[in-house]
């Protein structure tokens, strides 16, 4: 485990960025990062240095996130993803930058599955096969989900600003 902590440390900012975009809430995002790191710490003996560490950490984060969403959905009628949407929307309202507002609010309205694929590719620059492994889905699914996510985001962005009258449900 000699270099494990150090290696992980280098990825924490990226984990935080992804978690922030995924949940839209600073504290929730850091809770997610913390849970992920704790899980990684327990599972580090399963990590092989030959495997890229970043996808491995993102895969752990995905599992933690999905479990949280499920657990929350069981506890309450509202799914965590809905809370995230609300948090993202709230955050968007607090932001000073209109452009940033738009994208954050629109991101919140994407289905969780699409949001994950979109962020892993477009924000975190992971390649399709890494994203497939992270989310445990075939590459074909990555491609189609990604295309749907981008189309939907485009539609949402068109409807949210620039005076467009397009109504987005």
């Amino acid at each position, binding site marked *: 485990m000699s270099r494990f*902590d150090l290696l992980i440390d280098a990825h924490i900012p990226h984990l935080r960025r992804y978690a922030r975009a995924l949940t839209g809430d600073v504290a929730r995002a850091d809770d997610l990062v913390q849970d992920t790191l704790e899980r990684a710490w327990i599972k580090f003996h399963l990590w092989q240095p030959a495997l890229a560490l970043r996808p491995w950490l993102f895969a752990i984060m995905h599992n933690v996130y999905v479990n949280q969403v499920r657990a929350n959905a069981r506890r309450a009628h509202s799914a965590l993803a809905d809370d995230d949407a609300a948090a993202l929307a709230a955050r968007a309202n607090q932001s000073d930058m209109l452009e940033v507002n738009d994208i954050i609010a629109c991101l919140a309205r994407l289905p969780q599955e699409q949001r994950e694929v979109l962020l892993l590719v477009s924000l975190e620059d992971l390649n399709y096969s890494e994203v497939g492994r992270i989310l445990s889905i075939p590459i074909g699914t990555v491609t189609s989900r990604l295309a749907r996510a981008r189309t939907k985001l485009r539609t949402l962005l068109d409807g949210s600003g620039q005076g467009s009258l397009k109504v987005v449900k």
Partner: protein
Amino acid sequence: MSTDTAREHDIHAFVDNEIDAARLAEVEALLARDPAAATLVNDIREQRARLHAAFDGVLDEAVPARLMRPVRQRSRFGAIAAAFAWLAIGVAVGWMVRDARDERTRMPLPRQAAVAHAAFTPEVRHAVEVPASEEAHLVRWLSKRLGANVRAPRLNELGYELLGGRLLPGAGKPGAQFMYQDAGGRRLTLYVTKDADNRDTAFRYLNENGLHVFYWIDQQLGYALSGDIDKEQILRVARAVYEQLNP
């Protein structure tokens, strides 16, 4: 999959640098003749740019202390992991103590480093034995005495200039100290020892009477970076040291 869908997917793959070499020419031809395809490319790129504009700021934020090891308090997982870690340390320490012939002289690495730091950083004229101007000689000499290749990391980008170094009596083994100084005259020291019994460790931290010491062991060499400036800053320097020594 319809042809349209396949084409659309190709365009996404093109923007994401995922396109097969065999299909590249086909996609480029499509982009040249089909304005809708070109628009899609622009849309995808614009989304990318906007996502980065919205969230890249997070990368520059200071990482909250609760996310930095070894602080793990909140969850059950953390408690379990910490318990195992302490157990492992306890076993390791017990083993070392049992095994050590000269256990009384065996000071832990961070303590040796802290003592050496306290002893020599206040010195004005004799802070170092060999000045940075003779760095090549210094490094050769220390490497020879320690029986391992040691180097003085470059920390100029972080504002610390190498002053020089010295050889120190470690706990039964020689140690090397490199001293650095910033523009404000604040000093950091990097302490290096070699011990065949050393086992690799993670990055660890100790506060030794107000002195921050980050230390780790890598391939039998123990490193400890000490200073009484801001802890976060020392951590940054420690990371830089680690990265330079493990390219």
